[in-house]
């Protein structure tokens, strides 16, 4: 195993262990004790297994999971940023349909294998996005009657 996946495993299992310790601390300090009895039992197993995993990662003995390659990080980063901005900011601020349309178009542009220098590929993307928005509106607003936040636009 090269150093990068090993370090990634250490960070990942370290974070899980930290969450486990936090859960255990809250469980054992929470009152009334009866309400935290079940979480306490779980947290003991959680911490034990998390520390075991962290220890194995530190020793470089983690054998599962390929980690993240540099290429994978480079590929997913823009998509994940768009996704998180869409969900945590754009959807509640701009309105569901507006935000979804914009996010859809950006994701399509970012990951579409078709060349960006040709006008017809942009037309195709715009048409696909418009079709997508129409279908989503038809499904959720008209068929299911879900009232989504409209906010600034719709």
């Amino acid at each position, binding site marked *: *195993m*090269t150093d990068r996946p090993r370090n*990634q495993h250490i960070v*990942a*299992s370290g974070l*899980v262990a930290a*969450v*486990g310790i936090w*859960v255990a601390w*809250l469980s054992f300090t929470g009152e*009334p004790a*009866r*309400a*935290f*009895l*079940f*979480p306490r*039992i*779980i947290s003991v*197993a959680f911490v034990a*297994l*998390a520390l075991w*995993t962290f220890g194995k990662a530190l020793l470089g003995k*983690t*054998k*599962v*999971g*390929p*980690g993240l390659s540099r*290429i*994978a990080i*480079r590929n*997913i980063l823009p*998509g*994940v940023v768009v*996704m*998180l901005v*869409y*969900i*945590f900011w754009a*959807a*509640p601020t701009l309105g*569901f349909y507006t935000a*979804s349309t914009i*996010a*859809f178009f950006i*994701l*399509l542009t*970012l*990951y*579409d*294998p078709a060349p960006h220098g040709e006008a017809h590929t942009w037309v195709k993307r715009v048409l*696909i996005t418009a079709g*997508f928005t129409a279908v*989503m509106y038809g499904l*959720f607003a008209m068929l*299911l*009657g*879900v009232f*989504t936040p409209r906010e600034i636009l719709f």
Partner: protein
Amino acid sequence: MEFLMYFGDVFSPFNFMLLLIGTIGGLILGATPGLSPTMAVALLIPFTFKLDATQGLILLGAAYTSTVAGGAVSAILLKIPGAPANIATTLDGHTMAKKGQGALALQLSFISSAIGGVFGVLLLIFLTPVLAQWALAFGPSHLFWLAILGVTVIGSLDSNSVVKGLLSGCIGLWLATIGFDDVMGTQRFIFHSSVAGGINIIPALIGLFAIPQVITMFAKGRHQTDAEVISVEKSPIGGAIREVFRRFRALSIGTMTGSFIGLIPGVGGQIAGLVAYDQARKTSPEQKKFGTGHSEGVIAAESANNAMVGPSLVPLLTLSIPGSPTAAVLLGGLLIHGIFPGSDLFENYPDVAWTFINSMLIGQILMCVFGLYVAGLAARVAQVPNAVMAAVVLALAVFGSYSVQTSMGDVFIMAALGTGMYFLERFGFSAAPLVLGLILGPIAEANFVQGAMIATATSSIGTYFFTGLLNLTLIGIVVASIAYSVWMELRMRRYTTKEDAVEKEEALS
């Protein structure tokens, strides 16, 4: 034969229409690489809110059945398994298609899927009431151990690392405790207003299954799908039917293997298909033909992965313990309609339970009939670029999560859990035990608290939970499943190198 009384309900116009929509939609979704049956069913749940419980389950059950079978289309015509359950089908199915026998391979695949599927559902029909009667004897301590068993079996058998599988289960159990304690009303682990009411199962399921897949599609970058659909010539269906029955040994091996594996919680269709393929190859007088486009390979693999569907629901419908991630999603679908499966399901809701099961039986036949017609269309859908697929799944996940309680908090939880799960999966953690922990956590805690109260009044907690034949048997199975998985892990040294891991990941994705 109580199930026969509810057969007519499947054929009411609206129910039958839902069955058709679920079947045809499932076939197309199943053919799409990256859209696993679990994810397809999870994304469909929001569409069942306006339906009653029976109708919702008919739609979800049909989608479950046909996505498993639909995965064979892209496996045969594109050499890309639609779902992990179809990996074994690729071995001979695609080679047959390359030899100009694509239509025959598809016909064999759907006919053997239907035969295996019908056998599996018949097992579900005849085993479920018997086990449900038996489950009436279960008290709180037994139900507590059963819930723990559900998490540990999937945690240890469904993961590549026993420790990480069990750790995923613990994370799920912990997530289930977030919110207000049922007995005393105490706030627990409320670190953000979005989780004040606890974690709703449906958005969590959507996030845990859909978002990692979306990010996996991002990871492929601007990659052009280079797989070409192999065109298929018309082929007489009679020849395929005769071929299936001529290869009766492969069909029976696939059907029996799939049914048996389906009954074991945590062991999915992927394993069923591969084990059946391997067994059929070992026992065949034409061993050397396997891998070169041999019909027995397709028949064994496809009959197995659909035979697994029915039995995989037995633990869910009798003991309320979902035996697979898809069963866990179906449990979510039941819970939103206020139905809690278990020993009294067939007494309290016989119409819902039997109509659902009967619809799965009819669905197998519809799947076979329509599968042959929509295979060409499904193969085209399978070529939809990753960019479109990722954006569509993401939007469906957002709208679907929001529509559960019209709450942005649910959407935030869905996104946070899903993004976290993607990164955890890259480091060997698994979504299935986490989901099982999340779903079974409340069952385990409620029965633990109830059992503790009984124990305080009668004996000690130790005596109540650790004595008695049934308790000891369940504890024994928990320990045995973990021990078996540890032994297998030590023996096989799975994922010995990063290359192995990458290779296996690619095969499964």
